[in-house]
């Protein structure tokens, strides 16, 4: 309602503002229209004309025909026109009110719509929250069910595997049973057949033994009748064997027990000694207080157990084992502590550790250094004093210099001579090596020539010598003979005596050819003719044989 009045007021105020009315001192907007006091003060006797023109303007602006024309100055008013105008105005007003009402209604409608929408919105939000929670719950349930399904599937698989395994077992057992059944049935059949055969067969061959002469018993004794005494004897012997077996076993176990006990005692002693040596270090630790207190007790226990010479006493054994366990635990904890300490030290920065060590070292070394410095100084002083007692400083320095020069020259000369010697020795070494090489070449050439000569000689000795003429150059033979004469005095004798070709000589000469150093090894197996094979696993003998074979073949094949 207030808005509609405001709109009307606006209309009024706007019309008043664009055409300033003569009645400016009061604003009609402050006066509500629905109030019954009419704007009587608008038109007075002195401003009729203006009022009329004003009203005319207003009416024309509203779209209505003007009430009167301007030029007529008569203030007579066309009553019809005025009434029409008033009627139109009233109509306009009604129309305006109606639209106002409509708009108010519409506004109400809109407001209620908006409220309704908000309500529905909040409701939907709540519903959404609820459904989201439900969804989460359902998802969780689904996940759990999935897991359950998986586990059940695993169980099923396991069960299936087991069933399969059992089926396999059953199958194998069944086949085994069938096999046994068939075997028994076959044997039964054979038995039946045999029985039939025996029933039919008239002559029955009784089992019999036919010995030429009876032989004595293995142990030479006569066999005894079976009497109660012999039975008792057998029983007795049986029990004797059993008892002796148990005896030996018990003895073995006693020995083993004694050894193990000794071992345990030794271990205990050693552990004790280790723990005692660690005691001063352990005193710092709080947790070792208990240990230290109980240590004297332990020692007593240990001594007790050692004193008890009755080895099989259960208490002694228990004491021993419990004390060993306790000490072992202590040693273990100690070692673990050491390990952790070592780790912690390793984790600390290097500087700290090195700083510590450096500080320590420095503290140790500083006084030493001071001492040494003092010694050096005193020694220097003494030296200097000795060096220049009588002379002045300059003379002393000159003399010292010239001594040095003399020594220097001497050393230089000696160095030169040494170098000369060195060069000379190296030259000689080179010469010697060259000579040695030349000598070896010559030796080789000589040996070859000798071999050739002897070979030809040997060939000449054989009955088939006429077929093959030795193809030897005279020069070579001469050189061979001369060399033989010069280097090896023994060989010419052998060559000369080769005219009477005995196999012994032949073998001798042959052995001389390949290598004087190698000696013929004895045949590896007596009675085995072949050299290449004897199934032997040992390798070296075979190799030796092969080498021998090759060498012989080489000389004989050409």
């Amino acid at each position, binding site marked *: 309602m207030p808005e509609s009045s405001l709109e009307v007021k606006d209309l009024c105020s706007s019309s008043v503002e664009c055409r300033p009315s003569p009645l400016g001192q009061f604003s009609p907007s402050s006066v509500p229209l629905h109030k019954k006091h009419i704007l009587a003060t608008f038109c007075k006797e002195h401003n009729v004309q203006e009022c009329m023109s004003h009203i005319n303007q207003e009416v024309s602006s509203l779209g209505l025909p003007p009430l009167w024309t301007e030029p007529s100055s008569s203030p007579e008013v066309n009553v019809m026109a005025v009434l029409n105008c008033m009627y139109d105005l009233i109509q306009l007003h009604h129309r305006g009110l109606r639209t106002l009402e409509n708009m108010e209604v519409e506004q109400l409608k809109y407001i209620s719509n908006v409220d309704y929408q908000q309500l529905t919105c909040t409701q939907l939000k709540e519903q959404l929250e609820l459904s989201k929670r439900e969804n989460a719950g359902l998802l969780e349930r689904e996940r759990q069910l999935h897991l359950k399904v998986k586990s059940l599937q695993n169980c099923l698989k396991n069960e299936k595997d087991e069933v399969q395994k059992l089926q396999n*077992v059953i199958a194998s057992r069944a086949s085994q049973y069938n096999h046994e059944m068939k075997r028994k049935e076959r044997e039964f059949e054979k038995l039946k057949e045999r029985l039939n055969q025996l029933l039919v*067969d008239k002559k029955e061959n009784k*089992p019999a033994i036919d010995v030429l002469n009876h*032989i004595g018993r293995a*142990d030479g004794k006569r066999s*005894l009748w079976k009497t109660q005494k012999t039975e008792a004897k057998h029983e007795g012997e*049986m029990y004797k064997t059993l008892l002796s077996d148990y005896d030996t076993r018990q003895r073995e176990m006693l020995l083993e027990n004694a050894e193990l006990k000794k071992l345990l005692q030794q271990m205990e002693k050693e552990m004790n000694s280790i723990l005692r040596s660690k005691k001063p270090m352990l005193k710092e630790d709080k947790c070792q207080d208990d240990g230290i207190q109980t240590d004297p007790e332990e020692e007593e226990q240990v001594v007790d157990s050692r004193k008890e010479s009755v080895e099989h006493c259960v208490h002694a054994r228990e004491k021993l084992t419990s004390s060993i366990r306790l000490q072992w635990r202590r040693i273990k904890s100690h070692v673990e502590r050491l390990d952790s300490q070592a780790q912690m030290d390793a984790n600390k920065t290097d500087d700290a550790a090195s700083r510590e060590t450096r500080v320590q070292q420095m503290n140790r070394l500083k006084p030493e250094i001071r001492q040494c410095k003092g010694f050096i100084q005193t020694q220097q002083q003494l030296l200097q004093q000795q060096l220049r007692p009588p002379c002045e400083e300059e003379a002393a320095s000159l003399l010292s210099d010239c001594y040095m020069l003399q020594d220097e020259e001497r050393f230089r000369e000696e160095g030169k001579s040494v170098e000369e010697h060195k060069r000379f020795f190296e030259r000689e070494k080179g010469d010697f090596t060259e000579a040695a090489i030349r000598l070896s070449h010559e030796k080789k050439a000589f040996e070859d020539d000798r071999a050739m000569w002897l070979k030809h000689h040997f060939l000449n000795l054989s009955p088939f010598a006429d077929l093959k003429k030795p193809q030897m150059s005279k020069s070579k033979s001469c050189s061979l003979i001369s060399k033989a004469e010069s280097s090896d005095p023994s060989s010419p004798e052998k060559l000369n005596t080769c005219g009477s070709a005995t196999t012994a000589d032949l073998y001798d000469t042959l052995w001389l050819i390949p290598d004087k150093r190698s000696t013929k090894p004895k045949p590896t197996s007596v009675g085995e003719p*072949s050299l290449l*094979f004897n199934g032997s696993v*040992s390798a070296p003998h075979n190799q030796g044989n092969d080498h021998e074979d090759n060498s012989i073949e080489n000389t004989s094949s050409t």
Partner: protein
Amino acid sequence: MLTKMNFSEVFKQSNQLCKVSPDGKYLATCVQYRLVVRDVSTLQILQLYTCLDQISHMDWSSDSLFILCAMYKRGLVQVWSIEQPDWHCKIDEGSIGLVSSRWSPDGRHILNATEFHLRVTVWTLCTKAVSYIKYPKACQKGIDFSRDGCYMALAERRDCKDYVSVFVCEDWHLLRHFETETQDLAGLEWSPNGCVLAVWDSCLEYKVLLYSLDGRLLSAYSAYDWSLGVKSVTWSPSSQFLAIGSYDEKVRILNHITWKKIAQFDHVASINSTKAVVYKEVEKRTAVCSDDLSLHNITIGSTLFNTQSKYEICPSPVQIPVVKPDPDRANPKIGVSSLAFSSDSRYLATKNDNMASVVWLWDMQKMSLVAVLEQTSAVRCFQWDPRRPRLALCTGNTKLYLWSPAGCVSVQVPTEGGLQVQSLSWHCSGDSLILLGKEQLCLCYMDQEDKSRLT
């Protein structure tokens, strides 16, 4: 381990019947119906005996004076004397048939099992007396003599129940007769000290029972239920351990003090142990080049075409070839079927049937795997040297393999015609090996050289 090995020439034998006398002096072989006795060191034929039929089984008596030859088809047993070749003895079982024949420990009695195991007849060579034992059980190992030869344990079955009878071998006096808690007794074995008898059930139930000599049950051991159980059992020579090999590919070791399991050895397909050495046999084919066909090589014969092989050490982890057995067949080829302790009880050699080409060696002091030998084909036989910790094995080819803690070696058996080594056995002195092929045999003499002489 450097030994010199000399191989003898190849002799004929039949039925893998070839045994050295207990005193180590003679070697007896059977060729069809002949029994040939040779001197072990010279292999000269000392005696030759002729039996009435093809010999099915042959065995020496404990004093090395007699040999029994059993002919199962004819139901005959003939006994020959080494000292007196003219002496003869013939046991005819007649219509009752003969299924197995063996000596008693004193070498003067022969135990024959009749057909269908109706009874065991005890014949004696000293007198005319005959003893019968009724209801013996036909099983994997139903009879065992203690090592000192004093007692014999026999498995019996009466009224669907298993019994064990303990006899005194001296006069066949029945010492003890007790029922065993087995469903179906499969075998029994005396401990080497003769005081404990191990009895085990068939593979359908895992059960190992230990009885004292006087018949008291000392302990019962069962590792698991339902699956196939015990496949093989063996005592350690010191009687300290009992090794049980089972179908689950594991070996369990029981100790003689508490009779509880102290160790379990698994035969895994993938070996990750860093302490075990895995030897793998690798074949290297020798290429036949034309230059090498000299006369010398051709006289060697088929060795030219034999492949050489050597052992290589494989770094871990090593994969072992596994063959899955047919699940529908009975007695599947899975599980530990062979167990053998070395003579000093220090090592245990085992073979798992679904890893047939692999031999596993376990150290009994550390109770862990010490070596694995992987061969190129299935291992047929392995046996420990009776004197030292040395294992010999063969895989059916022409090679002999030896393992000792120092190492492993593969030796080609040099024979003309190629002897396929099917089984082997050591001489009691540990100095020689008898290699048996299908129809041949060969001796391998080993000389232990002093280590000081070798470089």
